[in-house]
């Protein structure tokens, strides 16, 4: 039997093709978002905003719960492997623990994690520990069962912006404002290595201030690399004029492997998100100083992005859903949007053509 529309029949809407990335869903908050995380079971997407709450959306139904309990903006979020626990770190230095199964979640536990901002929170691969870092120049590891401090690592000389566990769970990597990266050995509780990522910082001579820091970090699932998102080439950071950058580092050597940058020289701003895709490409989420944004799609062995998708609003957070086809992006216009890295379904394509 001949299909009525042979072209439609040829479309595989499940084949991953980043060049066909398109928006498939939108969740609205009234305030600019600051970060996001999708739970490992793809049930929830959580976002911080320029207010004191956490927005928790059910991705299937679109239902939203607003979680109150912080006294400052939420800067970083992570989930337990089953998605039932959520951990939120705020500018006030507090990490709250939430039960996502509750209809109206309230903090189960409040950890006074840092003096000054708690900038990043990550759950260990075995789900037993939590790593945080902050403006007190410390990296701390907490026991999730009882909330007690397990390790405290000092050595950074400026605010610590990001931290992540190596997938084998035996090491942590943290990065500060000036691009100082430290590797910490969790078994011995000691500092193992210092790495220079000063390419990711800059001193603004006119305004006499430093700019930099890891705005997102993620290890490659096989543990051979990690990626750090941020800035480089500071020109006038007080007006947002610097280049967004994602730098890849080799785990064994600690050496920089590659720098990912915008294909458009006019794009100035900050890279706020990075994710490794299992199909061996890297995704970056960028906020341009204009208020718009970009998604970058890079193959590790190629010099330039094989695809760049312009965004109507600056990206402030990025996550990859476990179906590996959808991306969640937190936007400065208050929306959390889902993008699908496949060809649009015929219905979506028709709708787009009609609306266009």
């Amino acid at each position, binding site marked *: 039997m001949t299909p009525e529309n042979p072209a439609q029949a040829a479309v595989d809407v499940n084949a991953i093709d980043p060049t066909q990335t398109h928006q498939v869903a939108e969740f609205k908050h009234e*305030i*600019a978002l600051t970060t996001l995380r999708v739970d490992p079971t793809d049930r929830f997407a959580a976002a911080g905003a*320029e*207010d*004191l709450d956490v927005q928790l959306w059910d991705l299937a139904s679109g239902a939203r719960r607003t979680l109150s309990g912080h*006294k*400052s*903006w939420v*800067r970083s979020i992570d989930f337990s492997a089953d998605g039932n626990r959520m951990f939120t770190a*705020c*500018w*006030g230095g507090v990490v709250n623990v939430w039960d996502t199964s509750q209809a109206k979640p309230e903090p189960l536990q409040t950890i006074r994690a840092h003096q*000054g*901002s708690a900038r990043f929170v990550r759950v260990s691969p075995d789900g037993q520990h939590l790593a945080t870092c902050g*403006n007190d120049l410390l990296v701390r590891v907490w026991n999730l069962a009882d909330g007690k401090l397990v390790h405290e690592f000092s050595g950074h000389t400026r*605010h610590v912006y990001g931290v992540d566990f190596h997938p084998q769970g035996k090491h942590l990597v943290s990065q500060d404002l000036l691009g100082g990266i430290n590797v910490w050995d969790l078994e011995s509780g000691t500092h193992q290595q210092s790495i220079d990522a000063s390419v990711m910082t800059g001193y*603004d001579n*006119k*305004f*006499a*201030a*430093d*700019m930099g*820091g890891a705005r997102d970090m993620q290890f490659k699932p096989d543990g051979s690399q990690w990626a750090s998102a941020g800035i480089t080439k500071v020109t006038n*950071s*007080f*007006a*947002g004029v610097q280049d967004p950058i994602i730098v890849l580092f080799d785990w064994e050597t600690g050496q920089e492997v590659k720098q990912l940058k915008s294909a458009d020289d006019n794009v100035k*701003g900050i890279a706020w998100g990075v994710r490794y895709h299992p199909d061996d490409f890297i995704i970056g989420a960028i*906020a341009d*100083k*204009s*208020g718009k944004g970009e998604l970058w799609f890079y193959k590790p062995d190629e010099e330039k992005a094989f695809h760049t998708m312009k965004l109507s*609003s*600056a990206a402030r957070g990025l996550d990859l859903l476990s179906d590996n086809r959808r991306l969640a992006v937190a936007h*400065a216009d208050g929306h959390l949007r889902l993008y699908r890295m496949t060809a649009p379904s015929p219905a979506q394509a028709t709708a787009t053509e009609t609306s266009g």
Partner: protein
Amino acid sequence: MRRNQGCNPLEHLMARRQFLAGTAAGAVGMGVLGTHAQADQLKREDKRILQVFLQGGVSQLESWDPKPGTVHGGPFQAIPTSVPGIHISELLPHIAQRMHHLSIVRSINIKINDHEQGRQFMEKGRRVGDFPYVGAVASKYLTPADSELPGYIHVSSRGLTDVAGGAAFLGAKHGQLKLEGIQPPGNLAAPVGIDALADASRDQLRLQFNQRFVQRRSKALTEAYDASYQQAAKLMSRKAMFEGQASQQDLDRYGTHDFGRYCLLARTLLENGAACVKVTHHGYDSHAENFNFHLEQLGEFDKPFCMLLDDLKARGMLESTLVVIYSEFGRTPTVNVRYGRDHWGTAWSIALGGCGIQPGGVIGKTNDTGTAVADREVDAGHLFHTYLQAVGLDSTANHDLQGRSIPIGDPAAQPIKELLA
């Protein structure tokens, strides 16, 4: 209260408190502040001004007027201070412990969002016109005749061009001497081969030439020239002041970064007779990353400034030193897409204390979201009057300029009386 132009000029030569106290207030007919015996008395009282200029426009919401948890409040919290009921941003923990030395004005509306225009208004107390800066006025009326330093000194790492050093018609002698950080001005040492005797001889020759030159020309033409020589001579004699090493104890307290060293130099300059010392701390024009930059900048500002405040207090100088922390404007309540705040002259704050200021107070307020002044609106004209009256000068008097009388402060503005001690 408008300036009473019907009063005898003498009444305006003295600050209100001194006038009411009757200190030589009965004398009449001597109207020139700069040469009058009563003005000399003010100079002997050794009052001075310390200006700390947070260049670029510090955010009032991240400093003196925090509104945590509100729509424009930002991520930082407010902390209690040493004055019950007054809260300031958590970014100023050291100042919070010393709030009883300072007061806050939270209701400034200068209706200007331009850096240069805002700065000029804040320095001159007038929106337009070639009028002297606060520092130049202090130099003229507060500098003792035997002072070994220029009256008005600005310590800054860069930029900020001020025409005639902000002296306007007061003359170059009262213009700002700008120091590039803690480095002494160049060429303070006499040239090799010129000893003190030779130096004096050549200066004498210069003066003779000047006298002949002036006989056929306006005296004003040589005044600026002479003032430069006089300033240079004063600085040459005090060269060691710049060369002294800060003690380790001071560096531990103030910090080793530029601003800490600027504050240490300011202490030295104030101790040595400068009538106005201005220290600029750059880096508040945060159109992007406002919160991270305020964390960094106010973190650098807070402690050294407090160490200077402590030292002024400990040395018995705070009561005779007006301390002002100010900018050219504040920053927008609205946070832009770059996490920045933009220029905002509509509803913002400064802090001040020391000589002549009631400490521990808050003047005016903004509305709940910080978008407008809700009570006791003032502008830079009011502040200008307030600064001068705080150090004992009647800002409603006139500058007497050889036949020309020019009001010292804007006659359309008044001091903030409830702020004056």
